[in-house]
């Protein structure tokens, strides 16, 4: 082992180990058409205090992966291979081995999840307070007054009119309010990790902004470790420290938000960025990715992106590439990542920010 390697190991031991590590995770669904390979060998470390965003289109496996981590997959789906390791305070557990009771504890105290459709996450006949209190009680916290105080604080943190909302029924709240209540609820037992599946999808623009700002505060002030699942690149640009691009059940690129947005090395990431319009600035030409997302029952050979990829060669049709280091803390699974690098150098991805042509006229 070289000196440099020694230093690396030494470094690792000072810093916290990642709270969540996925090792070669495979998830399969049974369907009438055959086995659906929703997640195919995902390795991922969620580092302490970071927010990591999983991006990709529908069918890329990102939601399945999120559900797999908290073991909320539907009955027809199964983690067929791999390990999900969770760590806290130097202790380590394999999420796959937890029994029902341990799993309940895990889901709220360690790793909680906020789902996409806020209304379905509530029991419609329970007031917010009863819902929260039931959860607290189930986890052995029965001091009614203390729980209520805690819940009120959480509701205030998510900028709700706490006194009113705590005794409301879910249907009395707007979509944005419900989403905020859900986030408050997910924090009830002070989890270490928060998984958010499309947390702002289906919300109106101004409501979406309040949720984004709230999540930003969670990240900056509470240093919560967060995994965002979103098809919306803009949410990732807003909130992610690191971004992982998923395609056909695999992570095809992972790196810092800046690496992904300004120095993408996988053609799919590049394609996504070129396909998304921005609001600010002059007109920009956009380019679609060819073809359609792949059929997960009948995946293409080799690199699963090759039928849609402008860089594809014979090798891509035969062999599926693994993630390869393409920069510091940046990896991509593409035989031709250097060609992508040249392409990005020749045709920069973002127009330079508009100059201040308009004089700002005060608040």
């Amino acid at each position, binding site marked *: 082992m070289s000196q440099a390697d020694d230093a690396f190991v030494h470094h690792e031991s000072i810093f916290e180990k990642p709270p969540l590590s996925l090792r070669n995770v495979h998830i399969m669904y049974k369907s009438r058409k055959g086995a659906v390979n929703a997640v195919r060998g995902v390795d991922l470390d969620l580092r302490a205090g970071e927010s990591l965003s999983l991006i990709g*289109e*529908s069918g890329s496996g990102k939601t399945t992966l999120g559900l797999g981590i908290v073991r909320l997959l539907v009955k027809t789906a199964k983690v067929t291979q791999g390990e999900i390791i969770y760590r806290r305070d130097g202790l380590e557990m394999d999420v796959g081995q937890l029994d029902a009771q341990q799993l309940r504890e895990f889901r709220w105290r360690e790793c909680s999840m906020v789902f996409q459709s806020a209304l379905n996450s509530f029991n419609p006949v329970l007031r917010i307070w009863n819902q929260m209190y039931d959860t607290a009680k189930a986890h052995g916290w029965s001091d009614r007054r203390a729980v209520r105080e805690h819940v009120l604080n959480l509701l205030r943190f998510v*900028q709700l009119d706490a006194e009113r909302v705590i005794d409301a029924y879910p249907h009395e709240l*707007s979509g*944005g309010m419900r989403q905020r209540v859900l986030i408050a609820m997910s924090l009830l037992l002070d989890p270490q990790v928060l998984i958010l599946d499309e947390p702002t999808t289906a919300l*109106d*623009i*101004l*409501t*979406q*902004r*309040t949720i*984004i*700002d709230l999540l930003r505060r969670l990240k900056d002030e509470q240093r919560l470790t967060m995994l965002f699942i979103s*098809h*919306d*690149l*803009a*949410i*990732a*640009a*807003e909130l992610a420290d690191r971004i992982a691009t998923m395609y056909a059940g695999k992570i095809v690129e992972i790196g810092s*938000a*800046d690496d992904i*947005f300004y120095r993408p090395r996988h053609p799919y990431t590049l*394609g*996504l*960025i070129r*396909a*998304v*319009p*921005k*609001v*600010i*600035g*002059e*007109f*920009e030409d*956009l*380019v*679609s*990715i060819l073809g*359609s*997302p792949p059929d997960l029952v009948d995946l293409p050979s080799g690199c699963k992106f090759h039928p849609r990829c402008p860089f594809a060669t014979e090798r891509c049709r035969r062999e599926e590439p693994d993630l390869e280091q393409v920069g510091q803390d940046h990896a991509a699974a593409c035989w031709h990542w250097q060609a992508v690098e040249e392409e990005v150098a020749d045709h920069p991805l*973002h127009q330079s*920010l*508009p100059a*201040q042509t*308009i*004089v*700002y*006229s005060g*608040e």
Partner: protein
Amino acid sequence: MMAHIELQNVSRAFGKEQERVLAVDGVSLTIEKGEIRCLVGESGCGKSTTGKMIAGLLPPSGGRILFDGKPIDRLNKEEYRAYRHAVQIIHQDPYASLNPVQTVKQIITTPLLRHRKVSGSQQAYRRALELLEIVDLTPAADFLDKYPHQLSGGQRQRVSVARALTVDPKFIVADEAVSMVDVSIRVSLLNMLMRLKNEFDVTFLFITHDLALAKYFAWEGAISVMYLGRVVEDGPTPRVITDPRHPYTQALLAAVPEADPELTHRKRRIALRSADIPSLLNLPPGCTFHPRCPYFVEGECDVSAPPLEAISEGGRVACPVRKDEHVSLLIPS
């Protein structure tokens, strides 16, 4: 020149008595032939209702809609039929708007035959192939025998467009037509629609909540911003996007996250006085944005609804307080 579509003080109410809501409240706008007009706003602003009224799927409860200069409620039978053919609507959800038990061939040939656009099934078949090619479903023959469930969302939406094209429309209302389609293929759908505009001279009303899409699709056209049933600002797209004047337009543009970390973190935040959108059942007096507006002037904004007034840079703004003020949405670096 006579406007292709003109709305004169159009309103639409739903419900009765206490439950009555005014989904569209006195909207006046004109759309010229060959124009692309975007209608943007949040849910409940009345943009879809306006689109449905233009397409003849909902009668207005007040005001008039003119098609090529004629009020649509005064058209004779023949003229009305021509209008309904000329104006087609493409809905948001391609999973719900196609008959699941019909093949693509049936979906396309049925209206062709029903409206005598072709004579006989042989010609209908050939026209169906042509239409599928126009919407980039190629090779077209591969798609004819497919059922909607065998197609992806993007492909279904193309079939919806091909179906709309069977009656040679002059005006297409696209209501959130690409919202449910994956990001990577959205642009190709938009580009295909844009080609229809250029090659077949189709006029578009593009309804969306997504300002970035509106900007992309209607850069050479115009945008109308709706809030709680009223148009609060309109004008040429580049002006509305780069120099918005109505505080609501500014708030929307500032709130949209951008797919570029540096850009999105440099955007100005516009703090609203209230996060909650008022209920249509209980609208505030005066400018309906006043309870949220950071520039609220007591005794002015809460008294009477401000009219849309023209500004010299193009378009109209319903805010006498701020219509001549520029606001930059970027924080200087």
